[in-house]
């Protein structure tokens, strides 16, 4: 059924297998003599200050939320962009209403200080 996609589906396992096979073969071939100094941070790197699974602040989440919501907006704008000429000014008006409502949310978030890194 996916006529034009056959090359992609053939290429997919090749793309997945290539790094796996390469890393596996490298593991077989390379010499392994771990010493503590080899495991340390390289050259100008610094020792990690804490566990990377530590807690993040909630500000990252607010930024992520706004990103995802405007990501959705882009998904709706994309079909409009593809049909821009056929839809003409009618399409522009539709999207203007759509954007106007979302910009209300943007302005509200801005007024609430959601973008400030307090």
């Amino acid at each position: 059924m996916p006529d034009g996609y056959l090359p992609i589906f053939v290429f997919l396992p090749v793309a997945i297998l290539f790094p796996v096979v390469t890393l596996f073969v490298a593991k077989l071939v390379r010499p392994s003599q771990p010493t503590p100094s080899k495991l340390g941070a390289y050259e100008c790197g610094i020792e990690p200050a804490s566990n990377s699974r530590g807690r993040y602040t909630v500000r990252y989440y607010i930024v992520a939320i706004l990103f995802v919501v405007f990501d959705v907006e882009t998904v709706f704008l994309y079909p409009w962009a593809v049909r821009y000429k056929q839809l003409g000014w009618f399409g522009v008006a539709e999207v203007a209403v759509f954007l106007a409502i979302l910009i209300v949310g943007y302005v509200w978030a801005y007024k609430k200080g959601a973008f400030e890194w307090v």
Partner: protein
Amino acid sequence: MIDTALFYVFALMTLGGGILCITRRNAVHAAIWLIASLMGVAGLFLLQRAEFLFAVQIVLYIGGIMVLFLFVIMLINLDTAAAERQYSGQWKLALGAVVLAGGEIAWVMARGLPGLGAAAAVQDGGEGGSDGNVERLADLLFSEYLLPFEIVSILLLAAIVGSVFLARRRTS
């Protein structure tokens, strides 16, 4: 033939990822398996010639929603939750519901699906001429489903307001 094989590969990915997602103890592992499941669903979309939805599934679900989930998992450190009891007391009810519906699946499969088996009735390629999936989707979205499209913006507005209000630190 090849798409039959691909269907089973993606179906295995979807279901296996889903089952592993709901059984993992560590929330980060559950999220990774959910990503595998969502990728399987994306593959199924591609097999059904829904190219735009395939892209949306990758960009929005895996690139957007799962990032949100991982942020929250990082935000609330769940090391204590992973050590606790994982399943609630409702598993009897849940198992009953699932056995009932599983029996329904078995019954339907044994009976066969009249009219829904074999290849799809309508061939997708012929009707749209040279237009691709996105173009025809746009025609439908900006004519027949105009009002739902506008209402979606209100849904997103509610999502912005609700989530920013809930997540913001009360400073006063």
